[in-house]
């Protein structure tokens, strides 16, 4: 478990061939990844996440520093050998080709096959395993153009798995996917890291998913990886909030989510059961109220429920009313004259 899969030392990334003439995007970066870890690379757009991943994958030359994969410097090992150590899932569109999903996964075996690319029995086993672990058996015969975005992403992950490498890099694998698919992909990667002892690094903008699933988060801000650590530590010491907070956005440490609107209305007190309070609070906070619980404020809301029948009883200084939905409650609060 303590084996270092990838070691980055004094790495400078950017465009161009040399340190002097190249355009530096980020660096110098020093960081290491253990086998069996799922790492989420977070950071604002344009900070160099994709460039870092491409440089680590050997697709793009670095401006300086070194990357060691399983104690070998990637600039010194042959590209074909590197392809047996490291696989990628990129944001590149596949464009042309009427490949079936199965043929696409099979292409992952290219670094392992002979000059003509014929599959041996070990190749077949690995493809089979990749297909089953990603749960895409039912998609195998379909053309990749007939797949949904989520299905295609799983096929691309299966292709990377078939490549059978100790390190997998994924560039925004959850972009353009709906919530169930995003959760599916992250859960899959989580499972793979744990079961196969692979080191998996994914860049993402899904902060909530990253907080839940990642073993470690790399926070990339202003041209470097400023922080790396367990998500919870980053939340508790305010690093996480600090990195993403802008005007109008605040990080709620209690719930681990970002809030869009800062409070600007009066304080309001909620009473009732836990679930009712949670959702009512969200709705009221979106309207700009500061919500307190079990305390004394000038305005009170009591939530009552009978099965799925909810009711909200509002008691203010001047008015009061009972409502059957949050919508009705909010409408009332928004229009005090009515």
């Amino acid at each position, binding site marked *: 478990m303590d084996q270092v899969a990838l070691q980055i030392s004094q790495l400078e990334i950017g465009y161009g061939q040399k340190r002097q003439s190249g355009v530096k995007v980020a660096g110098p970066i020093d960081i290491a990844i253990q086998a069996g870890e799922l790492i989420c690379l977070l950071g604002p757009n344009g900070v160099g996440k994709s460039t870092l991943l491409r440089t680590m994958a050997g697709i793009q030359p670095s401006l300086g520093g070194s990357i060691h994969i399983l104690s070998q410097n990637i600039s010194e090992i042959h590209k074909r050998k590197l392809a047996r150590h*490291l696989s990628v899932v990129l944001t590149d569109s596949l464009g042309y080709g*009427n490949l079936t999903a199965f043929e696409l996964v099979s292409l992952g075996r*290219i670094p392992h096959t002979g000059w003509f690319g014929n599959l041996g029995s070990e190749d077949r086993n690995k493809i089979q395993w990749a297909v089953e672990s990603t749960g895409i058996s039912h998609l195998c015969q379909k053309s990749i153009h007939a797949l949904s975005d989520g299905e295609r992403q799983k096929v691309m992950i299966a292709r990377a798995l078939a490549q059978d490498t100790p390190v997998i890099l994924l560039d925004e694998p959850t972009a353009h996917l709906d919530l169930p698919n995003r959760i599916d992909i992250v859960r899959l990667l989580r499972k793979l890291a744990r079961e196969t002892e692979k080191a998996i690094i994914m860049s993402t903008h899904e902060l909530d998913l990253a907080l839940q699933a990642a073993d470690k988060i790399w926070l990339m801000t202003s041209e470097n990886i400023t922080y790396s650590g367990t998500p919870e530590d980053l939340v508790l010491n305010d690093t996480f909030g600090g990195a993403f907070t802008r005007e109008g956005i605040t990080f709620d440490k209690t719930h681990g989510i970002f809030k869009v609107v800062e409070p600007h209305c009066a304080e309001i007190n909620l009473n009732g059961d836990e679930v009712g309070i949670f959702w009512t609070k969200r709705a009221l906070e979106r309207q700009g109220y500061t919500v307190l619980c079990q305390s004394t404020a000038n305005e009170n809301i009591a939530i009552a429920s009978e099965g799925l029948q909810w009711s909200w009883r509002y008691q203010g200084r001047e008015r009061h009313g009972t409502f059957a939905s949050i919508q009705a409650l909010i409408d009332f609060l928004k229009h005090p004259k009515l």
Partner: protein
Amino acid sequence: MASDQNLFKAHQPAKGRSKIALISISVLICLVLLSLDLGLGSVHIPPWEVLKVLAGQEVENKLWHKIIFMIRLPKALSAILAGSALAVAGLQMQTLFRNPLAGPSVLGITAGASLGVALVMLSGGGAASIYAIRQLGVGGSWLIVLASGLGAGLVMSLILLISVRLKDNISLLIVGIMIGNISISIVSIWQYFSEPEQIQDYLMWTFGSLGGVTSSQLSIFSIVVLVGLLMAFGSSKSLNTLLLGENYARSLGLNIRLTRFFLILTTSMLAGSVTGFCGPIAFIGIAVPHIARSVLGTSDHRVLIPASLVMGAMLMLACDIIAQLPGSQMSLPINAITALIGSPIVVWVIVKNRNLRTAF
């Protein structure tokens, strides 16, 4: 592991068998077309007599033997060589540039060959060349072959030189098209200042001709094409890797620049030799890879290269038969026929598959 076996049974052998069957059928059609092609012409020879001649048996008409071995067989073999070479070259270019409209001529190699030929035919003191052309027919002279070979080689060297400096394939595509345009415009300027007879000779060459290849030229033609086809077959795995795009191909350990160099070299050999010996022949290189992909329903180059090879030969033989205008004494320029047959086929493939993106 039982499910393992099932998965592979479901995905591999059945499809593999049908592909082999389809290619075998194409080979058979090719042979039928070959015997038809040998029989047709200004002197009609029945197909079974053609087979007899080929089998080395005695036939009633001694002249038929001579016609078949001296004229029609070299021509039919040229058609087979040209068709398969252009089809495979086109397939390579379409995959390298990930562009369904790419063909063997996109690198400007055909235009370079035309430039070489134009320089010989249109040069003021070209008495020798004119004499040679008149003697052997358009496309039949070693001088023309040499000139077009040099022209194609010059453009190829230029493209290879530039390809080493370029990072991505699309830039290379644009550079190739531009170099082709430069060659064509030089030819136009030259034509503008040339005598009408010289221009006519050059125009005759641009019509293309399968009949001008002599037996001695045929041996060199076939060696170049066979080596080129073998090289193409050897690059099947690289071509399959390129299906994923350049970044994925790099991540799979493919050396993009080396692969590109090798593919340009192969395409130049195939397309350059065809242009040299037969003149420019359009559309086979674009149409055949689409037919092969559409018929076989695969993008695997280990299947597509042999399939394009056979189908290219098949289509070229068919074009040659049509160009004979069966039942008449006339024959039409082959370059016009290939475009006439090739374009509707491309349209058919697009309509059948709704769009090229999925067909490609």
